């Protein structure tokens, strides 16, 4: 007997409750990543040499090391400096930091695609750098890169099981606990895998929709067909 449907119905409610934590971690982590990515991208474009080099070095460093170690680093090393964080917060910060550095590359591509003339026109109109960024550059830079950001949202979602390593009660950790209680790992872990697969496929389809929508609206600003 490899697959027990009764057991599946028994554990589904527990897993669904745990999936809320997974989704929370995803959304919070991505909110952090989206903001941090933009900040890093702008810092990296700075004309002051040491700021851009530091930002670039930080991004490359974060991108080159495993997110699991980064989670451990924030959870185990920060308390040594007096910063004690709950597991969930530490995990969300680590995921946000990791994907923030990926997102910064996406934002950078978007920012660099804004034509130079836009900058020059802003200078000609005597707009301050802050106003130029907020009202001229960012509104043109962000929409084309939304699908790429969406891909990182899905990637971040698929990394959330790592939080089980610092005992956050998300989907994977719950499945492991259920498995160790009943010595039946087949159903919980397969269900978790199925959940991730379904959610990722839905998200991928949604991103494709957004992409076609953006392609349509970006080519016809003002919505004229």
């Amino acid at each position, binding site marked *: 007997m490899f697959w027990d449907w009764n057991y599946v119905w028994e554990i589904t409610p527990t897993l669904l409750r745990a999936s809320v934590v997974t989704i929370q971690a995803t959304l919070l982590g991505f909110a952090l990543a989206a903001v941090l990515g933009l900040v890093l991208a702008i810092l990296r474009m700075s004309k002051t040499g040491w700021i851009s080099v530091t930002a670039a070095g930080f991004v490359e460093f974060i991108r080159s090391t495993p997110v699991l170690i980064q989670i451990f680093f924030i959870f185990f090393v920060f308390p040594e400096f007096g910063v004690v964080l709950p597991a969930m917060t530490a995990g969300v910060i680590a995921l946000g930091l990791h994907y923030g550095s990926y997102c910064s590359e996406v934002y950078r591509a978007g920012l660099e695609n804004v034509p130079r003339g836009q900058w020059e026109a802003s200078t000609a109109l005597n707009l301050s750098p802050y106003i130029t960024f907020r009202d001229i550059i960012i509104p043109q830079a962000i929409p084309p890169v939304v699908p790429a950001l969406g891909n990182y949202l899905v990637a971040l979602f698929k990394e959330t099981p790592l939080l089980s390593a610092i005992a956050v009660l998300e989907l*994977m950790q719950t499945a492991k606990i259920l498995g160790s209680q009943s010595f039946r790992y087949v159903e919980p872990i397969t269900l978790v895998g199925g959940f991730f697969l379904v959610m990722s496929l839905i998200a991928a389809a949604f991103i494709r929709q957004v992409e076609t929508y953006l392609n349509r609206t970006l080519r016809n600003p003002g919505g004229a067909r």
Partner: protein
Amino acid sequence: MQLRPLAVCAIVFFTAGLAVSSFAGFREFIPGLLQGAAVTIQITVGGCILAMVMALIAAMAKMYGPLPLRWLAVAYIEVFRGTSALVQLFWLFFVLPHFGILLDPLTVAITALGLNVGAYGAEVVRGAVNAVPRGQWEASVALNMPRALSLRRIILPQAFVAMIPPWGNLFIELLKATALVSLITISDLTFKAQQMNQTTFRTVEIFTIVLVVYLALSVLITVGTRTLETFAARGIARGR
């Protein structure tokens, strides 16, 4: 990936790590961490080889295979790209024994990571093959080459050059994913770090050194890919 900022921050972190740990007697950590690093490298290399083989098979099956094989390839790619690497690792580790398949953890690790990265790699291979100009296919037909031969001798060698940079990124992803195997009781770098952390409580030094080791391995992969890239591009340039 930009090399210079990476090198700069590698040096900064390494000296900082050294400065912190030199007065903390970090020598005692080095042998254990090196053992762990050896396991990490072993899994990375094994996973890379499996990933390349799987990627090539899956991409060929998806593009040129008969219908059932094509569905199988699509299912493989979607399932392994759609679920987390950690879930796949646990699935192979906990669920396969229920079906009577007992693998040692190292095999499970290499299989899971290789299959995971192979699924991403299949799309890389497919993209690179599609990027070879159609004229190359037409020229092979004109020269009366069979499909398999033109694929092997004409298309794949050209696609190979376009594949190198994305494969370099995938290898780094694989290296980073090997940190997960510590969760299925393999004593890789991450596992050793946690173990030592629990016995010595020298958290700062241990995790800093581990981060630097992973960074160094990533830089090694980047440098290797760059070298291969120039080497392969030279071959193409001569051929034209």
